[in-house]
């Protein structure tokens, strides 16, 4: 009786009802974990067999019998990575030239985009957060509120205007002919392809700030004890010095958490990179390359095993990052409440 009581998180009194509740709750959690893991497992399992095997096991075997792959092979993963020979591809797909996208290039683009966005956004947002949390200047709270209103803006609302900006139309009501900008590298007033189809174009809107990042860091900076920096200020240290030597070391864990979240968000971004790189396959990040590749797949008998290997490989970096930082991210939910 007493052990049963102690075992209950809420310290509720023991009763058949509560025990029944615990059983149901465990069942629910177990089901949830299976439902969470299974799709990933099935993607892996699909990638580990040939398309022919998918058909065979589908006709010959029951659902339970299909759980384990027959004759597992790594050919699909090597295929996606461009490491398979022509004979292997023919054997695996029954086709001589299976359509594919350049996974390694897309991967490289994704890494560049996500890295620049995470580093730039966190650093510049931290600078702004320092000013909002630690400095006093007229209009501070109004400016901060203005930043926060940015959180209300749905991305599609600024999608077209941002595209026009990426095309080199820098002013609101004006369109063509900015010869005065010819000195900007890559700018060509006549062709209007300024940053279109280029990685800086994908990165730019997320590089300098997001209202959420500024808000998240400001909340944290507000909680840092002021006595240390006041002593430093009286000793004549500049605000940059304080930012670098007092605030940054204390806020390091939170900045890493935010950086990881930003990295994953940038990695997952689809709509904006789609608009910027749709016609430029060699500049597409993984999400866009995969999405565009899917539209080129036939409706009947697509290359499922190749597609699922590519899909899993596209999620792999996120899964790896998650394995390293998972606990930190989960704990940050308690801290920030809402992302």
């Amino acid at each position: 009786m007493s052990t049963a009581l102690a075992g209950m998180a809420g310290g509720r009194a023991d009763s058949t009802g509560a025990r029944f509740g615990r059983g149901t709750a465990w069942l629910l959690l177990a089901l949830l974990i299976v439902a969470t893991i299974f799709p990933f497992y099935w993607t892996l399992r699909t990638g580990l067999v040939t398309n022919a095997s998918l058909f065979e096991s589908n006709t010959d075997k029951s659902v339970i019998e299909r759980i384990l792959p027959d004759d597992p092979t790594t050919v699909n993963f090597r295929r996606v990575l461009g490491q398979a020979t022509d004979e292997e591809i023919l054997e695996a797909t029954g086709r001589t030239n299976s359509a594919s996208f350049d996974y390694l290039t897309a991967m490289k683009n994704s890494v560049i985009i996500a890295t620049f966005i995470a580093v730039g956004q966190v650093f510049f947002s931290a600078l702004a957060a320092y000013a909002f949390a630690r400095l006093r200047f007229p209009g501070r709270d109004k400016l901060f509120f203005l930043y926060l209103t940015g959180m209300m803006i749905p991305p599609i609302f600024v999608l077209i205007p941002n595209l026009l900006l990426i095309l080199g139309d820098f002013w609101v009501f004006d369109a063509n002919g900015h010869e005065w900008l010819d000195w900007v590298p890559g700018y060509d007033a006549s062709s209007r392809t300024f940053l279109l189809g280029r990685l800086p174009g994908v990165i730019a809107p997320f590089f300098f700030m997001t209202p959420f990042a500024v808000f998240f860091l400001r909340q944290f900076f507000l909680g840092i004890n002021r006595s240390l920096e006041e002593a430093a200020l009286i000793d004549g240290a500049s605000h940059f010095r304080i930012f670098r030597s007092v605030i940054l070391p204390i806020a390091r864990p939170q900045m890493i958490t935010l950086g990881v979240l930003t990295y994953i968000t940038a990695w997952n971004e689809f709509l904006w990179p789609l608009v910027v790189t749709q016609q430029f396959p060699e500049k597409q990040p993984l999400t866009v390359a995969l999405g565009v590749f899917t539209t080129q797949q036939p409706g009947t008998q697509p290359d499922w095993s190749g597609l699922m290997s590519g899909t899993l490989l596209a999620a792999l970096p996120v899964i790896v990052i998650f394995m390293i930082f998972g606990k930190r991210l989960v704990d940050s939910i308690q801290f920030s409440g809402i992302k």
Partner: protein
Amino acid sequence: MAATTSERPKGAKLNLYGGWRAAWPFLLPSFLGFLFFFLIPSVRGIYLSFTDWNLIANDGDWVGMENYDRMVDDPLFWNAVKVTAYYVTLNIVTQTILAIMIAVAMDRLTKSSVVRSVIMLPYLIPNVVVALIFVWLLNSNLGIIADLFSFFGIDSNYFAGPDAVIPTIAGINTWRHMGYTALLIFAGLQTIPKSLYEAAALDGASELQMMRNITVPLLRPVLALVLVITVIGSFQVFDTVQVATGGFGGRPGGPGDSSRVIYVYIYELAFGRNELGRSSAIAVALLVFLMFVTFFQLKILRANESDLA
């Protein structure tokens, strides 16, 4: 005074908290980002909605309210509104109910960070990847989940049909979001003092009574914020629809008009039909609507008042 510019201020006139002179270098990068990618585009988005802007010519004339008039008379717009509302309702109801159940179960059973991490994982996977995995799992010929459903008498072709596409997409996104939403609610549950449950149990309250009289009222502020966030996110569904319905010979928003949600319609008008003005008008309407939804939700859920006070 001017001579001391950029010198570190010394002596009695030291202003510890800087003023604008200290603040502007900290604010400049983020302000440029805000100006160019939030503020100017917002003004421009509103401006474009009053023009017949054409991306190829990159030109357009002021047309007044025409885009808004056409929006109101456009059956495809109202179809998109209907489809989106259907999606949001299904998604929010299933996701929120499941998330509350998961959060309560976790609160009872385990604070294991491994369990919490696994539950959060789908939320971090790209939408495109999630959509593709489920298109495969639900494939009418070979999909294993479709096969499982056929045990319950659901035809394996069901998921490809126009009636099922929105429920299916709502289901996929419920799978992706319920764990994360559960963690937010779980965080809220941690703030409820355990002594309240102990006292109620001593008084002989049942599980259901405790749920109704303690958990729900005290969780309300958290639940309100979670709902605002998930409802707003839900109205903006795009990636999943675009990939799940646009691949494999399909058309985004299909079959027919059955999954053309508001984001997909805005995208299609702008980039499929080059009608940037009409597209912008609908985007403005969406912005206004979402602001209204936020305000309304916070109001009726009284998010800023806690019963714990």
